[in-house]
C-alpha cells in the first residue's frame, strides 16, 4: 500500500526533475552554470496559468490531443514496476497495454498536430509516426527476450527480482537488450541523436514542431506528459541497468530514484557529446536498435531453459 502511494507520488511529481537534471548535465559539460534544477516545474506551472490563443482551423481534437496523451502516459506509469517492486497494476500481458497506451498517446499528439493544418506540424507528425514504426519492434524484441529470461508475462515479472539472475545467466543478451532499449528511450522521447529538444529550426524537428501551435495550459500539459513519458521509460531502463536487491525496504526507493537520475545524467552526456543525426539516417539507427534487441532474443533461443 505504502509502496503504491510512493510510486503514485513519484510518478506525478518526479518527471520534470529529469528534464532539469538533463539540462544541468549538459550545462556542466559545456562549462556553464545552467538553469536551476527545478526550472521545468516553474515552466509548467507558469504555462498552466497563462491565457490561450487557438487557431481558427482547430477543432476539439486540438485540446483532446494533450489531454489524452497525458492520461495515457500516466496510466502507463502505473503498469511499470519501480524500484523492483511489483507495479500497482499488473496482469498477464500488461506489457502490451503499456506499449499500446504509449501508441494511443502518439495517435492523439499527432492528430492534434494535424488539426492546425500547418505543414510544419504535418512534417513533425509524419516523422513521429514513421520512426515509431521502427522503434516498436526494437521494444518488443527486448520485451520478448525478458519474457524468455524471466518466464513471466507482465512488466512486473520482467523488471522484477528476476533481472539480477538474468544478468548472471545471460549477460550478453542483457547488454544487447539494455543498449537497444536505451536507443528506444532516446527515440521515443525525441532526444539527441533523433531530435534536438532545444533547436528552433522547424524543418528539422520532430516532437517540438508538432506542438508549435499549442500554448499556455495546453503546452504545459504537453510538456508534463512528455516528461512523464521520459520518466516512465527511464525507470524501465534504470531497472535493467541497476538490478540491485538491497533487501532493505527503506533503501529501495532511494536506490530507484538514484538510478533513474543516473539515466537522466547519461542522457545529458549523450546529448553533450553527440550531434543530432540527419533525418535520413534516423531509420538506420532505429533498425540498429531492432538488431541489437533482436539478437539479444535470438541468443537466448539456443540455451535450454
Amino acid at each position: 500500500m505504502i509502496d503504491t502511494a510512493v510510486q503514485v507520488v513519484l510518478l506525478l511529481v518526479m518527471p520534470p526533475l529529469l528534464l532539469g537534471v538533463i539540462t544541468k548535465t549538459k550545462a556542466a559539460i559545456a562549462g556553464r552554470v545552467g538553469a536551476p534544477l527545478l526550472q521545468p516545474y516553474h515552466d509548467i506551472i507558469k504555462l498552466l496559468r497563462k491565457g490561450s490563443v487557438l487557431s481558427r482551423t482547430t477543432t476539439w481534437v486540438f485540446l483532446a490531443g494533450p489531454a489524452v496523451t497525458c492520461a495515457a502516459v500516466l496510466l502507463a506509469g502505473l503498469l511499470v514496476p519501480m524500484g523492483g517492486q511489483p507495479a500497482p497494476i499488473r496482469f498477464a500481458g500488461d506489457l502490451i497495454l503499456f506499449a499500446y497506451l504509449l501508441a494511443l498517446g502518439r495517435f492523439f499528439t499527432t492528430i492534434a498536430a494535424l488539426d492546425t493544418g500547418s505543414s510544419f506540424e504535418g512534417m513533425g507528425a509524419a516523422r513521429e509516426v514513421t520512426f515509431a514504426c521502427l522503434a516498436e519492434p526494437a521494444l518488443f524484441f527486448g520485451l520478448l527476450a525478458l519474457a524468455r529470461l524471466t518466464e513471466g508475462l507482465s512488466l512486473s515479472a520482467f523488471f522484477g527480482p528476476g533481472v539480477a539472475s538474468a544478468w548472471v545467466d545471460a549477460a550478453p543478451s542483457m547488454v544487447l537488450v539494455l543498449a537497444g532499449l536505451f536507443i528506444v528511450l532516446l527515440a521515443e522521447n525525441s532526444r539527441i541523436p533523433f531530435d534536438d529538444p532545444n533547436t528552433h529550426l522547424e524543418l528539422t524537428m520532430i516532437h517540438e514542431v508538432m506542438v508549435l501551435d499549442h500554448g499556455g495550459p495546453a503546452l504545459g500539459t504537453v510538456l508534463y506528459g512528455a516528461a512523464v513519458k521520459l520518466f516512465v521509460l527511464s525507470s524501465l531502463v534504470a531497472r535493467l541497468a541497476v538490478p540491485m536487491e538491497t533487501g532493505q525496504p527503506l533503501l529501495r526507493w532511494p536506490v530507484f530514484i538514484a538510478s533513474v537520475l543516473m539515466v537522466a545524467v547519461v542522457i545529458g552526456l549523450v546529448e553533450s557529446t553527440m550531434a543530432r543525426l540527419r533525418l535520413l539516417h534516423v531509420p538506420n539507427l532505429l533498425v540498429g536498435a531492432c538488431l541489437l534487441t533482436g539478437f539479444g532474443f535470438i541468443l537466448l533461443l539456443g540455451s535450454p531453459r
Partner: protein
Amino acid sequence: MGGDPEHSLVSLLAVWLPLVGAAIVGASGLPGLFLARRSAPGAWTAAVLHLLGAAAALGGAAASVVTVGATSLDLPWGLPFGSFRVELDGLSAAFLVPLALVPALGSVYGLRYWSPRAHPDTSRKLRVFYGILAASLILLTVARDGVLFLFAWEGMALSAFFLVTIDDRDDQARSAGWVYFVATHVGTLALFGLLAAVASAGGSFGLDPLPDTAAPLGVGTVIFLLGLIGFGLKAGIMPLHVWLPGAHAVAPSHVSAVLSGVVLKVGIYGLARLTCMLPHPPVFWGGLLLTLGVVSGIVGVLFAVAQHDLKRLLAYHSIENIGIITMGLGLAMLGRSYGRADWMALGLGGAILHVWNHAFFKSLLFMAAGAVIHRVHTREIDRMGGLARSMPITGALFLCGAVAICGLPPLNGFVSELLIYLGLLRTVQPIDGVAAAGAAFAVPALAIIGALAVACFVKVFGAVFLGSPREHHDATPSEAPGSMLAPMLVLAAVCVGIGALPALALPFLDAAARAWSVGAHAEALPLGLLAPLWWVSALAGATWLFAILLALGLRRLVRPPGAARVGTWDCGYAAPSARMQYTASSFAQILVGLFASVLHPRERRPRVGRLFPRGRSYSSHVHDVVLAEWVVPAVAVLARQAARLRIIQAGHIQLYILYVLLIVIALVLSAVPLLDLLRSLVTR
C-alpha cells in the same frame, strides 16, 4: 442433447431460427420488385425484413451458446448427391453474430446512401442481391454438408459480383468486377477439388472431422492446401488478395462494408472449419498460416499507407486484419500440433474476437467514408480536408473506428490483439518442455503492424477531417442524415462496448474453441482463465475516465473561455493557403520511401530547369505489385498459350454436340474393364 424437453426446444430453435432468418433476409429485396422504381416503401420493407431476419439469426446464435451440444437437422433435398444438413455449433455461432448483424445495419444505411430516388435504375437490383448475399452468408455458417456449402458459397460469390458491378456504366467497376469474378471462381475450383478429396477420404460430403486413418498426411496436406487456396482467395490472404482492393473500392459503401467486414470472414470460417475436420495437423500447417498471416499483415498495411483513394486504403487494411486473424489461427493450429491447450484457446479466441472486431470497426469506417464520399463526391483523400467542422458526428465516429482498428486501448481492437499477443508470448515459455520460440517472431511483426496502422490512420483522419478544406465545394458539406448515422452509432457503441466489457463475448469464444478443438489432443482451456479480461475492462474504464477528466480540466484552464481565435501560427508565415497543407501523400512519403523495394512507387516528377518556371505537376502512385507485376503477366502468357486450343472452337453447334458425344463414349468405355477383356482374349 439434453433429455428434458425445454432443453431440446432451445436447441431446435438454435438451428431453425438461422434458417428462417436466412429465408426472410434472402427475400427482403423481392417485395420492392413489385413496386415503382422510385418508391421508398420498397426500400423500407427491405430494411425492415432484413432487420427481422437478422434478429432471428442472432437469436439462433444466442440459443446455440446456451445449449450443450448442437442439434443437427436433415431436410429433404432433391439432388442425388449431398444433403441439406444444417447444424449450429459454437464455431458457426461465433461467426454468425457479425455475419448477421453487419449486413442488417448496412441495409438501414443503404436507405439514404443508395436511395430509390437517387438511383432509380439500380436500387431495386441492389436490394435483391444484397438480400441474397446476406442470406447466403447465414446459410454458409450453418451448412454442414459440402454440397450445400458450395451452393451457398456460389450464391454469395455471384450476388457479390452483381453488387460490385451495380454501377456497370463505370469502367473501373466493370474491370474490378471482372478481376473479382475470375478470382472467386479460381477459389471455387479449388473448393471443388477439396470436396472431392474429402468425399474420397471420408466417404461423404459431410463437413465433419475425418478420422486419421481416412486422411493420412499426404491426403490431409492436399486437402489443407486446396482449402488454403480456395478460402485464402476469399479471405484475401497475401498474395491471393489481388481482387480485393479494386472490388471493395468501387462497390457502394454499405456493400463495401459488408464485403470487407464480413464476406472476407467466410474465408476464415472455411479455414477454421477445415482445420477442425483434420484433427491432427503437422507443425508446418500452423507455421505456414502464421507466416502467411505475418506477410499479409505487414505488406497489407504497407500498401494501405501508400494509398490515396480512401476506400482502397480501407480495403488494404482488411488484408492487414485478415493477416492478424490468420496469425491467431496459425497459433491455434500450432497449439493443436504440440498439444498446448493455452495456445489453442488464445489463438482461436483472439482470431474469432478479431473477426468480430474487424467486422464492426471496418464496416463503421467504410460507412463513415461513404458518408464523406456522399457529400464531397470523390474518393481522393488529397482533395478532402477540414470535414470535422462540417460533419462533426461522422468525424468523431470515424475517429472511433480509426482508434479501434489501430488496436489501441480502450476500444475493441486492443482486446483481440492482446489475446493473440499473449498466445504468441507463451510460445517462448516451455510448459512440459514444449515451446515453439520461432513463432515468437510474430510478436515484433504484430508490433510493426500496429505502428504502421497508427501511421496510416493518423494520415487518413488528419487529411480527411482536420486542417482546412483543400477544395471548395459548391455548398459546404453537411452532416450525414440520421438513417446513415444510426447504424454507425450502433457499430461505434459495439466497439466501445467490447473494448470495455470483453468478458461479454466469452461464452461465444469459449463455445467456438470447444467446438474447434473436438478431436484434438487437448481441449482448449476456457479463455477467462488465460486472459486478464477484467483487468482490461478496469483499465479501459480508467483510460476513458483519465482522458475525459484531463480534457475537461484542460478546457477549464484554457483562458479566456473560448480563447482568442487567430490563424494558425505556422512559424509566423502570414498567408498560408489550404493547398500548402501537408497532404496524405506527403505524410506517407518517408514510409513509402523506406519500403520502396516492396511498394515499387511510381512517380512523375516535373523538371524545373529555367528561371521563372511555369506551373508544373507532380504525381505519385502505388499500384498493386502482386496484381500488376505477377498476376497480369502470368495470365497474359497463359492466354497466349491457351489461344492454341482455339482450333477446337469452330462455331458449329453440331460439332460441340459431337464433342459431348465423344466424351460420353469415352467415359462409358472407361467403365468397361478393357484390360481384363484384352487379357482374357490373349489367354484364350
